[in-house]
């Protein structure tokens, strides 16, 4: 119903006065002086009081409203269709394989962010090397090739395939040779693909070589026992280990596995069983293995062979022709007599290894091991290692084939001979005569840039694959992410180019496993495959390892050794040069990995460089200081490198690491150090790692960036505690300060209240006798906790950010007076050769009476009810007092904004590399202190998991990153409130002590005394 009612607002409206009608035409009855303000008078115009109030009211209102606007919310886009296995915030683990070791790949939201050892791995039982830990970063390397390349420009896969196929067809018709050059391939399926390729192109051949070669051992076993294999060594079965330059704890064959084996006879458990192996190392440069040895004898490379001949003589009671005393090294001579006695006593439980790649030397070592009955016990020839199977002679022959113009096509798979072949000119010159050159490199590396086609291989984390490091141990590689770039697995490429009937490489692998491999582990079919993808490996029952007896004449061998030794003996004014690999960089393939470049070398603590290591007395003799650049000239090749004083380096020798001096590895690795591969020489069919070198000073100084620059302990025995094994047997408490009962520095509780730890008290035990100093924990920690990389210059300014470090101290013997450790006394010491080394992992001690906590003005670092020392980054204002007051100096300050400062962009800042960050750990802004959190994110995850499963946290549920990667199991973490936890038991050991205990900081990290298996009178 319509209403005709009219409402009026005032009499004016009712009466419709003319003023009202006039005014009502406009929206506002009274004009708003906007025009006035904007034109004419502008601000100078008079503003009525009311307008002012209006403006004020509007202004205040508007500002208030504007302020009510929330901070813009950046919404993350949820999965449109959530992948079944991905729950945001929950990590997935996939089994895979790294260099033959079964691993777990931790992924978050589809991104691999961490590599962890597979606890069931038979090689390292969950331990991983620094290299393996760092390998995840290379997945996100933005310098990887993003698609195939032809002559330096982008090329599609279709075009590449077409081009290569037509070329190969032409080459096949032409009948010239095709060569596939690779480093050792341990994957059965890859080898099968290559075999298929060779079937398709019968004039092709697979040439396998290793930058650091083990041909000498393989060849020697061929000569001695007619078995061309790399044996599998069992250091755990050896009571006496004698190594001649074999760095088996650092770089030799399978160091992570060997560390595990080695430590089994030296760790707490072994000591409590009154058992400790004895390890004698003869070597030139100070290797990590030598630094762990009970006795270390310095020999020159030229003396190594003669020393072995003498050892053989002493063991066998014969005298090989050409045997002679080590005229200039009476120490070694004396030692050999003692070593022979000890080895004989330990027959069947002895092991002699040599690092040499010389066939004659290795034959002699075989003869010695045969005398000691090592075959079948400490050496296994029947379940051999496949980790290195390269053949030096084949690569040399390949270069000759190329130069003769016989090769029309060459494929480089995981091989970079232009960089790591000793005579790379032969390769580059030879390649010019090759029609089709294909590299599968994922970087435009030195060799790839000499090829026409680069068909980038996918990274192992993006690939299907398998591995067979040791006879009977088959592991699977499964992709943890789709290929980041447009790369394709080399095997797939080879299948396409070889017209392989297989559909793709995945199917190929499955068929291969279905047919050949699954059965070895008692698996079969789809179910077996699925089991494999969960366990990661199959293990065939090992063949019983047979005993072998050496039965050849050694006269010729001894003569060859003698000849070599004469060749290597340096004249006056020259030095003997020894080449070695560093634990971090190994053969240099991962040079573009900043975590590895910044990982301090275990012994020298040098980062971002290689150098010439020289003994202290030689430094004095030559008049060099650390960092002085010298020119090293050997085998017709010259490089300039800074020298570094290395206690324990044999006088008259220098050691230089290979794996540096890459020129096309990427922005991180390029021009870091100098390439030492060309110092190799070919002798007797194998690459030799020593030479005679001339050195000259250049007058320049190029300081090395070391993370530790003071090397002696200054007699401070509350930091490092040591005992000998004989002392330990008499009283297990020797050296720990517990001999006469433990002193309680907190007796009266004078100033400090005890904290309550009602439920958990997270503590750690570190066994100094197990720790080999390998540094894997340092990289694992960086990966887990997003620790920034700061680069050479900043490390040089002593600003590396590592949350855990390995302190390395030298002490020098002075005839049984307990060792010289004070700088002042050291300068008076004549003989600095007789050096002993101790490693001490140092991280936040999570003190109950933490000196850092009291001094922080803003309570940014506080104590938790679980015994941890927390660091609240958000609260930190950066006064750095906590770091000053930390007696352990484990706090790290963010001097710069490492995550967003263009000066550090080479390392971890680009969009791709940021994907490696652990989302459970924030990156820290500049001006903020940081330090070890005991992987609090892992503690939290463990507690949550237990809560979800409605149970208490079990011992071993939570493993911190450093503990998890430690191949030696030197680090134990857990709840001290639980008397049955591993850590509680470990801390109850008589050997336990706390660093700087007398300060009453009540640290949460206990250390166990380092025990050396030396008699007290021994040198």
């Amino acid at each position: 119903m319509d209403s005709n009612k009219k409402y009026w607002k005032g009499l004016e409206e009712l009466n419709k006065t003319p003023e009202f009608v006039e005014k009502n035409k406009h929206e506002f009855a009274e004009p708003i002086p906007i025009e006035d303000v904007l034109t004419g008078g502008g601000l100078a115009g008079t503003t009525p009081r009311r307008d002012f109030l209006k403006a004020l009211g509007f202004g205040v209102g508007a500002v208030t409203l504007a302020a009510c606007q929330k901070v813009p919310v950046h919404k993350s886009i949820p999965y449109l269709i959530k992948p079944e296995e991905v729950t945001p915030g929950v990590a997935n683990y996939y089994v895979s394989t790294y260099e033959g070791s079964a691993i777990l790949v931790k992924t978050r939201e589809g991104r691999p962010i961490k590599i962890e050892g597979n606890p069931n791995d038979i090689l390292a039982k969950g331990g991983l090397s620094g290299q393996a830990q760092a390998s995840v970063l290379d997945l996100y390397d933005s310098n990887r090739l993003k698609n195939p390349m032809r002559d330096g420009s982008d090329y599609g896969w279709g075009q590449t395939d077409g081009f290569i196929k037509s070329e190969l067809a032409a080459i096949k018709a032409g009948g010239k040779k095709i060569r596939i050059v690779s480093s050792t391939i341990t994957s059965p399926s890859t080898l099968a693909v290559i075999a298929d390729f060779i079937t398709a192109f019968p004039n092709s051949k697979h040439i396998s070589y290793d930058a650091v070669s083990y041909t000498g051992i393989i060849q020697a076993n061929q000569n001695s026992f007619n078995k061309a294999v790399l044996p599998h060594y069992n250091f755990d079965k050896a009571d006496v280990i004698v190594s001649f330059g074999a760095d088996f704890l650092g770089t030799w064959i399978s160091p992570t596995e060997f560390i595990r084996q080695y430590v089994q006879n030296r760790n707490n458990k072994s000591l409590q069983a009154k058992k400790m192996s004895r390890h004698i190392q003869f070597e030139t440069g100070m290797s990590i293995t030598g630094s762990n040895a009970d006795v270390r004898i310095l020999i020159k490379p030229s003396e190594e062979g003669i020393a072995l001949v003498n050892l053989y003589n002493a063991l066998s009671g014969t005298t090989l022709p050409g045997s002679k005393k080590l005229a200039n090294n009476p120490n070694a001579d004396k030692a050999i007599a003692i070593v022979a006695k000890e080895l004989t006593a330990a027959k069947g439980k002895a092991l002699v290894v040599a690092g040499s790649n010389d066939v004659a030397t290795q034959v002699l070592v075989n003869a010695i091991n045969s005398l000691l009955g090592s075959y079948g016990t400490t050496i296994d020839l029947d379940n051999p290692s496949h980790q290195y199977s390269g053949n030096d002679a084949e690569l040399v022959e390949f270069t000759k084939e190329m130069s003769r113009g016989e090769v029309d096509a060459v494929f480089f798979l995981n091989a970079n001979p232009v960089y790591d072949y000793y005579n790379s000119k032969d390769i580059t010159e030879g390649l010019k005569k090759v029609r089709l050159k294909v590299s599968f490199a994922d970087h435009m590396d030195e060799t790839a840039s000499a090829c026409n086609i680069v068909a980038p291989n996918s990274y192992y984390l993006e690939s299907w694959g398998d591995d067979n490091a040791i006879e009977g141990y088959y592991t699977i590689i499964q992709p943890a992410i789709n290929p980041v770039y447009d790369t394709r697995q080399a095997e797939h490429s080879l299948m396409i180019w070889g017209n392989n009937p297989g559909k793709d490489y995945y199917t190929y692998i499955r068929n291969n496993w279905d047919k050949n491999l699954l059965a070895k582990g008692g698996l079969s079919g789809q179910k077996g495959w699925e089991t494999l993808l969960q366990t990661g490996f199959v293990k065939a029952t090992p063949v019983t390892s047979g005993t072998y007896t050496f039965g050849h004449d050694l006269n010729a061998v001894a003569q060859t050794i003698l000849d070599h030794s004469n060749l290597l003996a340096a004249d006056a004014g020259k030095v003997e040069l020894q080449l070695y690999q560093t634990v971090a960089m190994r053969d240099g393939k991962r040079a573009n990995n900043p975590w590895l470049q910044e990982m301090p070398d275990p012994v020298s603590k040098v980062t971002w460089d290689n150098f010439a290591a020289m003994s202290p007395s030689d430094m004095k003799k030559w008049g060099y200081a650390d960092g002085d650049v010298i020119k090293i000239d050997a085998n017709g090749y010259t490089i300039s490198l800074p020298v570094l004083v290395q206690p324990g380096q044999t006088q008259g020798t220098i050691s230089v690491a290979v794996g540096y001096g890459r020129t096309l590895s990427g922005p991180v690795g390029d021009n870091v150090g100098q390439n030492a591969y060309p110092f190799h020489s070919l002798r007797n069919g194998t690459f030799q790692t020593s030479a005679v070198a001339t050195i000259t000073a250049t007058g320049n100084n190029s300081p090395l960036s070391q993370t530790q620059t003071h090397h002696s302990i200054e007699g401070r025995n509350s930091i490092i505690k040591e005992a000998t094994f004989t002392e330990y047997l008499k009283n297990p408490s020797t050296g720990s300060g517990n001999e006469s009962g433990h002193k309680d520095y907190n007796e009266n509780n004078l100033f400090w209240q005890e904290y309550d730890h009602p439920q958990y008290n997270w503590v750690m035990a570190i066994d100094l006798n197990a720790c080999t100093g390998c540094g894997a924990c340092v990289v694992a920690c960086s990966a887990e906790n997003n620790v920034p990389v700061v680069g050479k210059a900043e490390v040089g300014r002593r600003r590396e950010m590592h949350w855990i470090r390995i302190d390395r101290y030298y002490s020098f013997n002075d005839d049984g007076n307990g060792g010289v450790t004070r700088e002042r006394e050291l300068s008076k010491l004549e003989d600095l050769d007789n050096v002993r080394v101790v490693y001490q992992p140092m991280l936040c001690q999570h003190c109950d009476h933490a000196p850092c906590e009291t001094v922080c003005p803003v309570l940014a670092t506080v104590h938790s009810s679980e015994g941890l020392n927390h660091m609240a980054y958000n609260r930190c204002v950066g006064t750095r007092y906590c770091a000053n007051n930390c007696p352990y100096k484990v706090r790290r300050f963010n001097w710069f904004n490492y995550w967003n400062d263009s000066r550090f962009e080479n390392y971890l800042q680009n969009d791709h590399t940021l994907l490696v960050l652990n989302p459970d750990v924030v990156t820290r802004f500049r001006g903020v202190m940081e330090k070890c959190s005991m992987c609090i994110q892992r503690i939290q995850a463990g507690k949550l998991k237990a809560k979800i499963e409605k149970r208490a946290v079990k011992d071993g549920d939570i493993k911190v990153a450093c503990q998890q990667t430690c191949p030696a199991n030197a680090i134990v973490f857990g709840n001290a409130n639980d008397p049955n936890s591993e850590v509680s038991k470990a801390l109850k050991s008589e050997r336990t002590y706390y660093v700087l205990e007398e300060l009453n900081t009540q640290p949460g990290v206990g250390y166990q005394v380092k025990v050396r298996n030396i008699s007290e009178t021994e040198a």
Partner: protein
Amino acid sequence: MASHSESIIREPLITGKDITYAKITNDILAPVERMPGRAWWIGFTVASLGACLWVFAVSWTFWYGIGEWGLNKTVGWAWDITGFVWWVGIGHAGTLISAILLLFRQNWRNSINRSAEAMTIFAVICAATYVVSHMGRPWLAYWPLPLPNQFGSIWVNFNSPLVWDVFAISTYFSVSLVFWYTGLLPDLASIRDRATGLRRKIYSFCSFGWTGSVKTWQRFETVCLILAGISTPLVLSVHTIVSMDFATSLEPGWHTTIFPPYFVAGAIFSGFAMVQTLLLVTRKVLGLENYITMFHIEAMNKIILLTGSIVGVAYLTEFFIAYYSGSEYEQYTFLNRFIGPYWWAGCMMYGCNVLMTQLMWFKKIRTSIPIAWVLSIVVNIGMWFERFVIIVTSLHRDFLPSSWAMFYPTWVDMSVFIGSIGLFFTMFLLFIRVFPSIAIAEVKLILKSSSEQAKKKILDHGGLDPEQVQFYKESLVTFDSVEIADYEKI
């Protein structure tokens, strides 16, 4: 401070003939009322260039991060806290002079207290800039203050000496500022009364409507006395607390109970040295020799000698305790001062502070202006090195030899320090242009009793012990502002 006659054997505090109240006002206000001379402009240019360098270097630090300094994982404090403690120490003389000497009725303070207090304030400003700029995140510099906040129930750590320090420095600064400004009021009124135009307006605003009535004066004196009472404990507390920044740690070389008295003595020592450095130049340039006389110079030198010797005793005590404690870390730290890589810094510290100041036992040296000036600089250098040695030489080699490291300053470190000196002198030079550099009212107080002309009148009046007269005459020989010839005939 009435105008009673003073003993003749006391040396005069104001020299010159025909000094009247008006002349005092004229003399002291001259620099404020005339256009600055060439010397001032040169000094000001150099100083303000330094201040610009400071602005640049501090901005650089804020922009790029503390990493631009030479600090590292082992040495977390170096030139920053060295500079901070050095400036705070320098800032000590002012309050000591104005408060303690006032309470002890040391009239000679009247001529120097103004400049000394100004110096104090500027030095504390310089120190405070370090407090902020050494922080990793200086934009959060207010967090160490116990402010109610919305970050949750976050409070400051009252256990931390750095929080005590924030209180100590801010209290000291505010009390010093109030004391200084209160003292300035009558003098500002004098300027106001003589000024015209804009200057008059400004100064009348600044002088808070000073009328000069008896009641005003009475209140003025009472306030000054109260403020002196408040300031007196501060003289001791500030550097005591600064010393606790170190003493409450467990760092060998820091963890020392002797630090509070040792630091206070050191602070007064360096403070007087800086007063000496400034006033010896100022009195000459501004022609104030009649008001800042040889007596003042010598008195300050005596204090420098005394405090320097206290510091020396403290050094010896430290060494003894290091030996006696049996703590190997402590022992090493002290040995390291002589035989470590920073031995030269240790030598500078002990040489400048202990050996050089012992020269002050000789009156010839105490009363020689050039030597006193050089020694005052030497003391300043020595005290800078003392802090450097305490901070850097202790930190760089503490418990774990694996972490031993060297500290090398960068250009930013040096620029911030040099710049802070520039900032200080800029402020001081501006101060002597706009404020009377000597407390006019307070100097006038003693004109009738302690001036040379008052004494002369007594001498002229005669009837004194000739021995005392002789003593007085001999003491005047050292004065560069007294004409000895006037006394020959007496």
